[in-house]
């Protein structure tokens, strides 16, 4: 399959996902929740030895996205189930690996947009904290790396567990384990990005062996 066909497939997956309400609901909830957080605790959480507002905000953003990214991916329609991959491969004459790659690519763009939607709020937190702009990127890059890794993880969970709720729960659990395991800051972002690349490679490489046929339930 050519790169152009793969891009078309990914584009169609992305278009379908962008037209579902899930992404926009998640973005709206994210902006509303984080706005409310800043309006109420914009001058910092009153804790002993509290860290700067930007770091407190980034931690809140991190936890929120840990839950919201897998949910958005699972509900978007771009995270295809195993049977959908097999049907697409048979009817569209494409390799299952191409279909999986297109799905993950669409999910990655979607989740990056989701994480990027929080940038204006993080900018406000940085202005409140009176810290250099570099600190803003130091807190935001791990979030973008998190969306990179949440895309293949959720795609894999949807392929293994057909039920959306179960897949979201499993993807959230795996994402949270990764969030806890990686170091903080830019080092953590690098580790997450590396994990994302590894997860995509594993998923795509094994797709042609596993997803040629419909499941027995289909």
């Amino acid at each position, binding site marked *: 399959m050519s790169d152009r066909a793969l891009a078309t497939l990914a584009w169609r997956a992305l278009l379908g996902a962008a*037209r579902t309400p899930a992404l926009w609901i998640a973005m709206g909830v994210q902006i509303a929740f984080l706005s409310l957080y800043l309006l109420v*605790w914009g001058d910092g959480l009153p804790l002993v030895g509290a860290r700067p507002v930007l770091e407190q905000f980034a931690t809140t953003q991190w936890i929120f996205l840990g839950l919201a990214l897998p949910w958005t991916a699972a509900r978007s329609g771009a995270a295809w189930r195993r049977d959908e991959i097999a049907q697409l491969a048979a009817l569209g004459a494409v390799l299952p690996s191409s279909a999986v790659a297109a799905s993950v690519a669409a999910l990655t763009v979607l989740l990056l947009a989701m994480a990027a939607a929080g940038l*204006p709020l993080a900018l406000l937190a940085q202005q*409140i904290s*009176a810290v250099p702009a570099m600190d803003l990127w130091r807190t935001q890059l791990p979030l973008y790396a998190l969306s990179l890794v949440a895309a293949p993880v959720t795609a894999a969970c949807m392929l293994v567990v057909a039920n959306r709720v179960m897949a979201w729960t499993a993807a959230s659990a795996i994402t949270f384990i990764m969030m806890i395991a990686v170091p903080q800051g830019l080092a953590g972002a690098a580790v997450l990005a590396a994990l994302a690349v590894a997860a995509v490679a594993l998923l795509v490489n094994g797709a042609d062996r596993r997803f040629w046929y419909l499941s027995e339930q289909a």
Partner: protein
Amino acid sequence: MKTFFAIAGLVAASIVPVRGATLDAAAGLGGLAKAGRWTPLSVTVASDRDAIAGELVVVWGDARVTRDVTLAPATRKTLELYLRTTEPRGALDVRLRSAGRDVVVATAPVRVLGADDRVTVCVAADAASSVDSAACTATVLARSLPRSPRGYEVADDLVWPGTHAGITTEQDAALRAWRSLEALDASGDLGATPQVSRPLVPRGLPAALAPIVAGVFLAYVSALLLGAAVLRSRRARLSWMGASFAVITAGACAAIAAIGHVGATRAVHVHHVTLLQQLPDTQASVLTVRAIAEFPAFDRFSLRLPAADGTLETPSARGPASGALDADGFPVVTGVFGLAGRQSFAGEALVDVRPLAIDDRGATVTIENRSSLLLRDCRLGRGLAASISGPFGTLAPGARIEASWAGADEAPGGPLITCVSDEAPLPFTEADRPVVMHGETTIAAYRGAPARGYAGE
């Protein structure tokens, strides 16, 4: 090569000291100081050759005061600073700093006395004059007397035989103000005056910024959802939506970055509780303020109290307070603050604002509001009764009331009258931004010394 020489020049400039800079410092009233009392420090900065643009840093115990200094070549400047500390040391550490390093350093020794030690300061007209040294704890030359009543705080008594000549108008006003304060303190009127408390400001984003922030994010989420609705209705292409998403997010970032830099959001808001005590028999008042400043943007600010004889203290991590003065000697709250950043501070100043005119004629007292302020919640002092009929509580500009002593058996105490104004008598200023004051000022006026003691006689 040019770049190399430019860098080398900059490095050399940063390590070459200011040539010919000298610093002389003398502390204390006659060299005396007490814990918790203001102590004067006279500093003379001189530069024989180079111009100086730096900062004078004075540390004494847990107190720290800074003052910006600019000096032309071959000139000298004498500055008077005031410090107080609960942990006084035997000397004040004075440093002139420029570009982050010490240019010249000096120490000013003081003799620290106990709180109960009685201090009598004698004033000599000049070095040739003789005073009764046995009665004097210290002797001060008239020309060296402090320019602020704070400078006399260490003294219990001041002896100055003969005519009071050889001092400036400023020194004379400071001496009168101190004597007036001492008399009020001795009579108990000062202690019976309600003091200022810290203003209460709710947590969260400041009220001035919260609606703007909420509006920006509401517009942001609305724009995104509108774009989504257009996309869902198949009236827009995905590429168009992607570009719109980028533009909307960038627009929201720009709007956030503009907060505090455009329009009404530029203003610094100061929440204050102020007390203005009109000193009798002088033309001065003591202004005491406790305040919280709310800054509108991530920027450098210098919030100035426009009173040359004053101090603003901000709590610091090192100790109870630190103060700063700008190059003109005005007290400032200065530093880099974040958007919605808050800074609490307290201040004192001697000002020439006197909203109330008191005409004390023994049995009756006439009080007139000579300011342009509407004074509310006016209360007469104990033992005084207004001779007007009807409710009394508000004094419009130009309005006057008469009051008389109600009875001889009740000893008066505290101010003759207190009123409240919603306007600050001395609003703060900032070089680049407007300042909006929130809070109230209590104005207290007292009887003069000759009239004090009339009631009850």
